[in-house]
């Protein structure tokens, strides 16, 4: 366990966890992303002044917003699936179907919001 893995990086990247593993790793990336970026945003709003303004200008840039938005929205949609399946464990047998539904919810909302973010960029 831990840092002493007995598999090569190449083997690890080829791990065939498929859908459930992809959601697991994206959930981590999304959670970590929010922890780092949202903490930065709150601290920037707290200290305000020139430094805070510069940090928040970076945070509010449309490109950065797309990244943060992906982190947050995926974590929210995937988290709802995890919560439902964990609180009603009998549904766990339909995990893969639930993940397909999850993508069907996530992709349209994310795509529409990104279109709006790009359309209003700079405005």
């Amino acid at each position, binding site marked *: *366990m*831990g*840092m002493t893995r007995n598999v090569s990086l190449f083997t690890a990247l080829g791990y065939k966890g498929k859908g459930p593993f992809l959601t697991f790793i994206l959930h*981590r990336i999304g*959670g*970590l992303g*929010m*922890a780092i970026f*949202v*903490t930065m945003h*709150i*601290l920037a*709003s*707290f200290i*305000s002044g020139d430094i805070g303004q510069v940090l928040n200008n970076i945070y509010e840039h449309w490109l950065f*917003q797309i990244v943060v*938005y992906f982190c*947050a*929205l995926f974590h*929210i949609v995937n*988290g*709802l699936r*995890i*919560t439902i399946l*964990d*609180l009603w*464990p*009998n549904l*766990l*047998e339909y995990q893969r179907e639930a993940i397909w539904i999850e993508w069907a919810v996530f992709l349209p*909302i994310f795509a*529409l*919001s990104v279109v*709006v*973010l790009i359309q*209003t960029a700079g405005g």
Partner: protein
Amino acid sequence: MGDSKSRTLPLNKRGLNFEMLMWIYTRLSALGMYLFMFIALVGALYMGARYQMSLSDLMRWLFMPNVAHVEQVPTIQDVDAWATLFWKLVASGMYLLATSHGVHGLVVIADDYIVKPLGRKIVRFLSIVMMVSMSLIGLYVIWIS
């Protein structure tokens, strides 16, 4: 998938320690945040979001119903309704749930890589410091700045 039925044990056979409590808390705090997002959605629609906000503006408000998140929206002239005591309370509830949920999430990730008892103690100490300080700073931003 063949014979892969999930196996569940009743709670009294699973045991209940701090980690188990936090596992449940992570799910329940997530449910709490969905509730706050739903309140923010209904409130925003009631206050005119259907005509005044784009989807991305609305989502920003749902993630954190703080008035600073609608001040940039050009079609909302009067932001007073978005800065009431009610919304500050909703924002505070959302924020405290998010902080505790998030800091515990960081501990879970750290535990996958830091396995020695001393390292885990340090992680827990840092997590408590981070939770208390970020809770106070966030509440200051919501209520005062």
